[in-house]
């Protein structure tokens, strides 16, 4: 097999992995601060994907241009969910939080089925079938745009947490909950803001991902699982870890499909998960429990 095929496939996996990483970043942010595992994460992403499909079908608006408005809608959804639905469960046992978010996920899947039906839907932009030829390499143009958009969104999120006062306050809540209360931070509002940001992140990922794959309502649970694999591999609560995990899973799946059999490529993602759990349970970039 020609060497450029390996490079082609690895680049394709890398670009898709960046979008996966952005999606998982939302999950990591929420868990890292609020300590709630969002079991409706993939379902929230399918909502964003359907918003992109609806906007494109009605007004021919490119999902990349609609990325910010869609992220905004998901932010509001996340903020409202945390503020009114999840907050009463914050101090309840984890299984109660788990059941709540599973219920929310099921409602979302069935709601999407009622509204949009079961057919796969997609967005066909003017560049949907374009590719860049660089020497012997042929790179999917859509994946290049999607990968770049994922990098920009992730960088903006990193900058927000690093440089803004609100971002620093959220990090303070994550580091020391009691300390944050003592210094007078409005933890409830900051938690809602964090959940909103995580949801906005997954909203942006959905708007980008709809350029690469078709959306159906049952896609949600599959992506929730994928997000979990990525954040566990990268390190639960670690933002750079989520991106790294996404890229690692994307490239591994792509190369495994090429070198072994494509129908077993998901198996390799799970194999990485098992190895990480065995030898580095905190994830590649996660912090060891003291």
């Amino acid at each position, binding site marked *: 097999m020609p060497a450029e095929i390996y490079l082609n496939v690895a680049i394709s996996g890398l670009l898709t992995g960046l979008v996966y990483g952005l999606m998982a970043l939302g999950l990591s942010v929420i868990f890292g601060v609020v300590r709630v595992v969002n079991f409706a994460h993939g379902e929230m992403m399918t909502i964003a994907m359907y918003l992109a499909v609806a906007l494109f079908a009605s007004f021919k608006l490119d999902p990349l241009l609609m990325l910010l408005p869609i992220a905004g809608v998901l932010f509001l959804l996340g903020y409202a969910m945390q503020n009114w639905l999840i907050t009463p469960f914050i101090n309840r046992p984890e299984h109660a939080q788990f059941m709540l978010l599973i219920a929310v996920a099921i409602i979302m899947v069935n709601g999407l089925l009622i509204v949009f039906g079961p057919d796969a839907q997609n967005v066909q932009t003017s560049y949907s079938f374009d*590719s860049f030829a660089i020497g012997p390499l042929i790179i999917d143009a859509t994946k290049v745009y999607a990968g770049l958009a994922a990098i920009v969104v992730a960088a903006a999120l990193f900058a927000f947490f690093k440089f803004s006062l609100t971002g620093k306050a959220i990090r303070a809540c994550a580091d020391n909950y009691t300390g944050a209360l003592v210094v007078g931070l409005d933890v409830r509002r900051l938690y809602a803001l964090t959940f909103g940001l995580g949801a906005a992140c997954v909203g942006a990922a959905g708007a980008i991902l709809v350029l690469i794959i078709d959306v159906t309502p049952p896609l949600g649970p599959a992506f929730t699982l994928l997000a979990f694999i990525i954040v566990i591999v990268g390190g639960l609560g670690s933002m750079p870890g989520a991106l790294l995990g996404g890229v690692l899973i994307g490239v591994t799946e792509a190369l495994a499909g090429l070198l072994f059999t494509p129908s077993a490529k998901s198996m390799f993602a799970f194999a990485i998960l098992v190895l990480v759990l065995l030898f580095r349970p905190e994830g590649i970039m996660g912090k060891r429990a003291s």
Partner: protein
Amino acid sequence: MDRKPFTNSPRVTRRTFAAGTAATVSLMASPAILRAQGAGLKVGVLLPRSGAQAGIGQDCQRGVDVTAGILKQLGYPSLQIMNADTETNVEVARARAEKLISDGAQLLVGAFDSGQSTAIAQVAEQKGIPFVINIAAAPPITEQGYKFVFRNFATAPMILSDAFVNQKEVFEASGVAPKTVVFMHVNDTFGTAMQKGIGGLMPKFNMPYTIKETISYDPTARDLSVEVSKAKATGAEALMVVSRLNDAILITREMVKQRWSPMGVLSMGPGWYEDQYLKTLGKLADGPLSFVPWYDPNKKVSKLLEAALAKAHPGINLNTNQIYTFEALMVAADAYKRAGSADPKALADAIRKTNITDNVSTGPGIQFDAKGQNDKLKNAGIQNRAGKLVTVAPKGATNAKAEWPMKPYDKR
């Protein structure tokens, strides 16, 4: 404030409880009996209306939608349709079949997919309820010695045998044949049965090509870029494929993006001729050849079905999904008419003696052998042309000449 004591409520005795239960049971049973007498045979139709095969399941449903009017015109008794969604899931298919039977279904029809149909066949046989398969090609379904399972659809070896004959006809007519192909197939029950069948049957047909590589993929795959890269890298002259609908669209998109235009696409399954494929891909949908169970456009009932579909669903091309779903219901109505009863055993005996020559599918008609298989079905070669489907093989049943090799994607 004191609560009202419970002792004030009427006392329930064993006698009143028994009377109430009897009344409830009789109320529940009476309408069911009346319905069964008045509304014809209760037929449970199981289709993948959601999940990965939703598009095809809904296409089959269009066949269900237009059946009642045609059966009436042909003098068959009416059917009471009970719909169920298998959710493209074998276990759900099994559970839904059990539920339909417990809800009073007297005959089952479905389920497009071999895996799901296998599960339903086991339930039908266990419960003694006739099951008429509309579409499912895995051979073992009718090799189990079942007494209540019937299939009016070609098995994988039948599809492959006719496909090889029809492909050679197309190659000879155009004077161009590929020397190598790469074979991509979905790794579900149907795809695996076809893959096994190719290994056994291809040598007998002296095909002009050899298979350079076989690539299988998951039926729920969301991205087939790796698979197509691998297929392209083999350098094969043509793509041979057994797929479903969503994956057919994904493969085509990737072929265009990866700038791979083989001599042609030779499909031996669904996907490439579906309306959703044609509408989604527009001019990029033109060219693939599908070698599949099809219909004889010259038959009277075919014209009735075409007209009914055109009226109910304008712009939808008549295809395998509607044809064989309609015929499965036709078998049910015919058996009910001859049996004169909804008794499952009488229905199964009547189905076994089916002899419908006034039908839709290619071939002499609908009859079942001792295993419950219609072994007289014939397949055709069809090609997508400007959003329409034309029949290019076998000789005598064509309405167009195949465009082979197909036009490259970058020249459209």
